[in-house]
């Protein structure tokens, strides 16, 4: 505990007698911060005097809009970045209904598509993003390692470009204006307790296997949960979807009816809505297999409970694969002048590597691994990105050990994951019908 108490507590603890030394300490701290800042971004491109009053409000979900990242950015950039966390639903509603209260909206691909259509965003000029050429082509070209990235659901590439700065229509192909700048992403699959399940899980169908009756769970965010269900049904061989991310009414019916049947048989112990619930379901032993996010698996591990993130790599028969998601930053339409300049500074700061190193220790990825690598040890990069056995202990962003030397990350390397994406988080054309049917499943 003592080692975790940071400067803040110590500064707060000094008494009046040492007020002078405290002031010195603060000055020293400020100097360190400034030095670190200039080191990271080089000479500030806009005028330190004029930007110090600027405040950028970055709003989004807590796994993507992280206070520690905002604090670091403020320190490096010389203007203030405030992070506001909301859940996915509240965030998109805020962007749409109160655009003036947000500067940098944090959006998923499907939300970007909706936001662009509503005209609340302005385009991001490609040539002002310094690292644009180093962004993985998954996002900029929709391909990776010479392979087309799945277009089921709404892939980041699908929502990436507009033709003009204030256009409200997303277009195919590479253009000069981007809708959102990807900043953090991952591939979701199944988490399970190896000590109880007893065999390696590599297929989605295990989620609905009667062996785990009353001990499995799925995600209760309708437009994502239904895709996890679809992956499981496809894996079991019930049906083949044309596009799991944009089902027909009939496909929705088949999926929900199957879910209702499973629920009636007592397959699901629960459905979960928040990250924390998924961690607790697993940690408490209520559930032994469930659709899960990689950092949630890490969080269970950090509690000393065995948990594996299933590598659901695509099979030769076309089944399996991960469900991908990606959060990126947009620019609200009302940004202009110095504030817009600051926003571009901020976007470029994200690709300078500090943030990439930070999110990697959560188990997430940066779209520009090249710069993120500089902010990680060789051991960390090997473990998180390359799928190599850890040469030494691996720690989370706050210093807690989460993997011993010799451990290998579940699901293997970055390439293995992202060449195996089956579908992306989405909003379907039959969205309203799907949500209604999903709620029928829940109240069945």
């Amino acid at each position: 505990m003592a080692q975790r108490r940071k400067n803040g507590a110590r500064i707060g603890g000094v008494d009046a007698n040492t007020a002078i030394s405290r002031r010195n300490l603060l000055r020293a701290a400020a100097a360190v911060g400034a030095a670190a800042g200039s080191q990271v971004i080089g000479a500030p491109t806009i005028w330190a005097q004029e930007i110090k009053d600027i405040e950028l409000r970055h709003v989004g979900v807590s796994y993507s809009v992280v206070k520690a990242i905002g604090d670091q950015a403020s320190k490096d950039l010389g203007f203030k970045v405030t992070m506001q966390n909301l859940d996915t639903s509240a965030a998109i509603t805020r962007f749409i209904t109160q655009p003036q209260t947000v500067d940098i909206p944090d959006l998923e691909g499907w939300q970007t598509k909706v936001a662009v259509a509503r005209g609340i965003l302005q385009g991001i000029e490609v040539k002002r993003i310094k690292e644009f050429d180093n962004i993985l082509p998954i996002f900029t070209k929709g391909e990776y390692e010479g392979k087309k990235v799945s277009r089921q659901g709404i892939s980041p590439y699908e929502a990436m470009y507009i033709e003009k700065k204030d256009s409200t229509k997303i277009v195919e192909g590479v253009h000069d204006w981007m809708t959102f700048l990807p900043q953090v992403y991952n591939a979701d699959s199944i988490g399970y307790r190896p000590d109880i399940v007893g065999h390696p899980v590599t297929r989605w169908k295990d989620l609905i296997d009667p062996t785990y009756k009353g001990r499995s769970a799925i995600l209760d965010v309708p437009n994502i949960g239904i895709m996890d269900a679809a992956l499981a049904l496809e894996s079991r061989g019930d049906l083949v979807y044309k596009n799991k991310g944009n089902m027909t009414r009939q496909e929705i019916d088949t999926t929900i009816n199957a879910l209702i049947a499973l629920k009636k048989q007592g397959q699901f112990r629960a459905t979960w809505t928040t990250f924390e619930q998924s961690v607790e379901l697993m940690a408490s032993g209520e559930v032994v297999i469930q659709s899960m996010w990689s950092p949630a698996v890490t969080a269970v591990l950090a509690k000393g409970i065995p948990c594996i993130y299933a590598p659901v790599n695509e099979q030769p028969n076309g089944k399996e694969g991960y469900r991908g998601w990606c959060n990126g930053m947009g620019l609200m339409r009302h940004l202009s002048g110095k504030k817009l300049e600051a926003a571009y500074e901020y976007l470029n700061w994200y690709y300078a590597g500090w943030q990439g190193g930070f999110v990697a220790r959560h188990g997430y990825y940066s779209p520009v691994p090249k710069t993120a690598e500089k902010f990680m040890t060789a051991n960390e990069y090997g473990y998180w990105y390359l799928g190599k056995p850890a040469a030494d202990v691996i720690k989370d962003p706050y210093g807690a050990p989460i993997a011993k030397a010799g451990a290998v990350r579940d699901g293997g390397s970055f390439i293995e994951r992202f060449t195996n994406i089956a579908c992306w988080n989405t909003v379907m054309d039959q969205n309203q019908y799907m949500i209604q049917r999903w709620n029928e499943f829940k109240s069945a």
Partner: protein
Amino acid sequence: MAPLLAVLLVFVVAPLAFVVAVSFFHYDNFAIIPAFSFENYADVLTAHLTYELYVTMIWFSLLTWFFTLIIGFTVAYFLVFHVRNPLIAIGLFLVCTVPFWTSNVIRMISWLPLLGKQGLINSALLATGVTRQPLQFLLFSDFSVVVSYVHLFTIFMIVPIFNSMSRIDRTLFEAAADAGSSRWQTLLHVVVPLCKSGIALGSIFVVTLVMGDFYVVKVMSGGSRASIVSAMYDDISTLLFPHAAANAVILMIIVVIMVSLILRVVDVRKELASQR
């Protein structure tokens, strides 16, 4: 009166006017189109789901109402008529309030270590040999939903009943006793009629709270139930505002009807005005 009117006009009437207007709009995934159409209402009213949700929530309301009323009345009775030092009564009342200053979100989460498979209750039951298997129904069930409602909402019953009871003239007890009525008769024929306004108001609070809930159902049923508002929330997550608005309008109408039924039994305004 003026401040009350101002708050209601600015923060209730005006925004609800938006909601009502939007409930008649057209929409697709990417836009909302101003219109005057009843399709959203038709969608809501023809959906089988709507009826299921209302039946579930009304059932939850009734159960919660019943338990909170019994507990709330008894607790209020104890505090008003049996605790003789008013300072101690206030102290005990505060003891009932303190848990509410820890956020509901946190307190919901804390049911898991109490009611879960490896929770305190199941551990105790297993250790004492009362059961062989952990009791699953304790958590993520209708049972845990109702327990949680009663836990959260009983205070809303206690407060109005407590205040009604405080106003009862104690000489009435002596009069009743002199007239030869038993404790039970006094309770039924003196106390209950004199605090019916408190009971009615508490009932209004509890019914409204349950019907408008989204968080308790979501967490305590382990997602195996949906509530009216949680379905609305799912709509809003993907920006189906007009559909959610129509849902909201219908919910408001139904709950206002439920409240006016309670008021038909006990006219609290008349009770208030009749004390001349």
